[in-house]
């Protein structure tokens, strides 16, 4: 098993499409490094495979999962609501009267005394006193007059999947239609790796090709979050071109204004649950692993 792994690693490691010659030396070293702990067991075999076996290179792609973070809070679940109510009740029970409440109580007593004893109101105080109750009513009126923006937007109602204003309480991901081979597929925007750039740069380039240069997104680190490996159909498969590895990166969309973005291809902003409508199952499985349930 270990020996097999050593062989597999050396084969994969020594493959680099288009750059094998110049990095032959490095790859040999790489093989050596990878197989070092197993050298004792498969010493001769490793080296032999490295130099003589046909490499099975994989094409590298960098894909970007661009997330629009939620703008409003998610609705509370039943237990959460009950608990919130209970907490408020307990807080009320444990509290003392505030100044406003004391004022209110005193004024109520005064009113009661006036009604009972029924003396002239002019005697009590020459000026008109604003009661605490009046203040409360005034505040209530002011609050009712204010109209907040609705939590369920128009885009929600029309189910316009191209707009960013939909589903404000969950993450939205960008999906674009790309041509892979002969097929048009819905994918996370991806681009092929070019030598001389890191995979993160590849992913950012992919994002820029679909959304324009002035996109404000914060990539979360240099490391990929997920990988999707697939082999090309037998018709296209060659010795040098076995399949592709798509490395996924995650980024948060900072600016909510995408009016400048000129999307060339078909695009969609979808939540994690709606991904299943567009992506094929294997791809979806890999993508779901690195997406949090929101």
């Amino acid at each position, binding site marked *: 098993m270990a020996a097999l792994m050593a062989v597999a690693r050396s084969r994969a490691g020594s493959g680099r499409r288009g750059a094998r010659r110049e990095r032959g030396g490095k790859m040999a070293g790489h093989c050596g490094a990878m197989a070092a702990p197993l050298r004792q067991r498969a010493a001769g075999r490793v080296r032999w495979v490295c130099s003589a076996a046909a490499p099975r290179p994989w094409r590298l792609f960098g894909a970007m999962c661009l997330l629009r973070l939620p703008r409003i809070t998610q609705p509370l679940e039943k237990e959460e609501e009950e608990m919130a109510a209970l907490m408020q009740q307990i807080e009320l029970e444990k509290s003392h009267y505030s100044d406003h409440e004391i004022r209110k109580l005193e004024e109520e007593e005064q009113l009661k005394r006036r009604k009972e004893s029924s003396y002239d109101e002019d005697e009590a105080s020459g000026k008109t006193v604003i009661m605490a109750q009046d203040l409360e009513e005034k505040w209530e009126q002011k609050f009712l007059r204010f109209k907040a923006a609705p939590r369920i937007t128009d885009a929600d109602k029309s189910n316009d999947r191209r707009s960013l204003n939909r589903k404000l309480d969950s993450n939205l991901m960008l999906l674009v239609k790309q041509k892979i081979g002969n097929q048009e597929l819905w994918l996370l925007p991806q681009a092929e790796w070019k030598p001389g750039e890191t995979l993160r740069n590849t992913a950012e380039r992919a994002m820029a090709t679909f959304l324009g240069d002035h996109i404000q997104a914060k990539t979360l680190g240099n490391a990929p979050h997920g990988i999707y490996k697939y082999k090309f159909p037998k018709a296209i498969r060659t010795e040098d071109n076995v399949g592709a590895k798509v490395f996924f990166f995650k980024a948060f969309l900072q600016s909510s204004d995408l009016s400048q973005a000129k999307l060339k291809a078909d695009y969609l902003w979808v939540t994690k649950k709606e991904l299943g409508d567009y992506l094929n199952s294997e791809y979806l499985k890999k993508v779901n*692993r690195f997406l949090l349930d929101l």
Partner: protein
Amino acid sequence: MAQREQLSLHWEPAAVPAEPGLGCARGPSAHAVPGETGAGAVPSNPSSGTGCPHSALGNPPGSTHRAALPLPCPGQRLCGLVAAAAPARRSRPSSCAESVTPESVSPYVLYSFSSCSSWLPQRVPLRGNHWQSSLLELRTSLPVRAQPKKKKKVDVKKEQAQKERMKKKIKKLEKAAPELIPIEDFITPLKYSESNRVRSLPALSPEESERRVLLLKKWCVFKQKQDEAEKKAIKALVESQQEALQELRLESEELYQAAIRRDEGLLPFERDGPSYTPPLPGYDPPEGKCVDITKVYTQ
């Protein structure tokens, strides 16, 4: 200390009682004004005044000191004074027997000879000392016999001692534990502990308390499930990333090294959290000024 300086200054010329003859003018070297701090006297008389051991008499510093003081070695003191008063002019004489050259004696020294107690204008030249042969020889042969170096050493030492004392005091103050800053949130103002403030609510019924207990238990379970789900999600995230990094390593070591490098620009990551309703487009908040009245304490 400073006033003692002046004392000694004053005592020395007091060997010659009531010496108005030397001129009443008070030079900067001898601030005969009682009660004045020695700061003014020090610049031109760096080590003067304090050195006279004999002048440590119990008389209070002030204008009341009179000339009637026994001075066993008036010449010495005078020498010292003169020497001290004119440091810039010449080097200190090594022996007290050295005679003072006329031009080397600072006129200010002579001003100091005049008794501080006498504020009267002194125009009558008087013979300052018994060894002064003639009145005209005022500014000439004043024998300087004192040991100026000794005096200066003692002066320097006293000043150093003074400085050390001050430093020690400062250190003591610094060592004392700093006053604790009161946490305003934890101090309940007294007016809120009055009895009229206590809320009067009906007591809890047993059904209500039962319901509450059951609800708390349900909440525990709910939160536990939520926490487990979060941990599972994080684990899946980490696994997925590890797998991706492993595959990348198989592909190319270079890209792998670039991937595991730390991203400096990522942290600190700031983001405004979600609100209950989305922001109103075109909302004009009311104008107002926010005055911050938090009390700031310094230790």
